[in-house]
């Protein structure tokens, strides 16, 4: 992947966030404050703006996107998104790859770091479970599978798998019974992100 294609990927990501905003607000209104779509729309606008001035290096773009999300909002999803992008930027700066061998390793590393930051554990029904599902699916995929297809399928099946379970952290944990049968808004957001790949 080169800088131009990463920037293009972020542009498609930003469009996808705009498109998903009202769906995510409505989902979040059932369990949270109803602002997940607003948060991601603000992140998308800031990321779009920063792409025009971001350096033409992969880690430079990831760092700029991270800062753009951190500047957009202090809501927990925005902070974790910024954290995840920074983790990816630092991964590349450390000379590590982003291929199908390294990607699951990066995702598991990010899950661990974001779990420490946010306090969620795997199984709590959060976006961490989606990231973990992507890592596992890539590891299990065959060499000729398209990675974007694998990620899309993984986030969709994680969503389905967790639908029948309660949310165990954040405001949504307080609606534990009600949350059974509902999709976690953060997991839906990650699925929409993979669909933009």
């Amino acid at each position, binding site marked *: 992947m080169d800088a131009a294609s990463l920037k293009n990927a972020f542009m498609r990501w930003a469009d996808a966030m705009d498109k998903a905003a009202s769906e995510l*607000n409505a989902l979040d*209104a059932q369990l949270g*404050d*109803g*602002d997940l*779509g*607003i*948060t991601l729309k603000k992140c998308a606008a800031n990321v779009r703006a920063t792409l025009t001035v971001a350096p033409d290096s992969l880690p430079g773009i990831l760092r700029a996107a991270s800062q753009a999300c*951190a*500047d957009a*909002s*202090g*809501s*927990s999803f*925005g*902070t*974790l998104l910024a954290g995840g992008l920074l983790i990816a930027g630092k991964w590349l700066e450390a000379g590590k790859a982003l291929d199908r061998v390294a990607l699951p390793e990066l995702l598991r590393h990010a899950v661990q770091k974001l779990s420490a*930051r*946010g*306090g969620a554990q795997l199984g709590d029904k959060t976006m961490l479970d989606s990231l973990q599902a992507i890592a596992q699916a890539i590891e299990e995929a065959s060499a000729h599978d398209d990675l974007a297809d694998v990620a899309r399928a993984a986030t969709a099946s994680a969503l389905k798998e967790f639908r029948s379970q309660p949310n165990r*952290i*954040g*405001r949504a944990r*307080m*609606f534990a019974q*009600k949350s059974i049968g509902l999709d976690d808004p953060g997991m839906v957001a990650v699925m929409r992100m993979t669909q933009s790949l």
Partner: protein
Amino acid sequence: MKKILNAPSAYVDEMLAGLCAAYPSSYRLAGDRVLARAGGAVPGKVGIITGGGSGHLPVFLGYVGDGLLDACAVGNVFAGPRVADCVSAIQAANGGAGVLALYGNYGGDRMNFEMALEELESDTLKLTSVRVADDVVSAPADERARRRGVAGMVFAFKIAGARAAAGGSLDEVTAAARKAADACRSIGVALAPCTVPESGLASFEIADTEIEFGMGIHGEPGIWRGPLKPADALTDEMLDLLLPELNLAKGDSISVLVNSLGATPHEELFIVYRRVAEALAQRGVRVVMPLVGRYATSMEMTGMSLTLMPLDAELERLLQAPANCPFWKV
């Protein structure tokens, strides 16, 4: 949505501009979304910062003032403050004696404050933090650390602010804040929701005839929902949930905050306070400096909360020490 505003996305910034224009001798902006004392950090005094979502005035930013807070990082309505604003708030409050971050126990707020503290902590700048977790309905007593912070925050601001104004060290101010935060217990009831400007959505749905008992300030679920009951019955039920956690004995002292969530009028708050005062008098508990009014709101939400804070001699003295901000004078 029926609100007096311009662009919903400008809600917070226009509010901040108006607040500073109304009280220029009290407040100044120390960043896009940072409110600080007009006169700047007080040299040699421990700084106290807070932060959190907008939509709760006077919480959080309103309590920047003498004998209270030094700076506040301001988030969007009901959303945490950005890391960069937490950093700026710490810097604006730094008078050279260290800074305490004193805020409500919410996931986003905690992450952002922790990241800001990690960024700034150094040999020359000592930082501590205390989270307020007083809402008894938000988690059981054996999981107190998971409870959310509501109106008890006002008592914690007052106590910590008084200790800092009296020349306390960072450790002493932090200990006083923790003592106040540990002492407070709160519970709320809600009758009607508020609307978050940018989503245009009500914070929860409820029938005209119903009350939700135990509901949190953002519409977090309570214990039961049903037909509205008389004020005395509601008050007794709130006391029944708070008092068992406090182990009060005859002759103890306590402070009380009967707080409007926004739309509930003072008249109704006093009806509730009357019953609280009777119940505490019956137990031989002495009430010190009760607070009745709008101290921690959720915009136009209808409802109220009751906070109790048992006092030892130190807390009683710090509670009654002078304090002054545009929303509250002691």
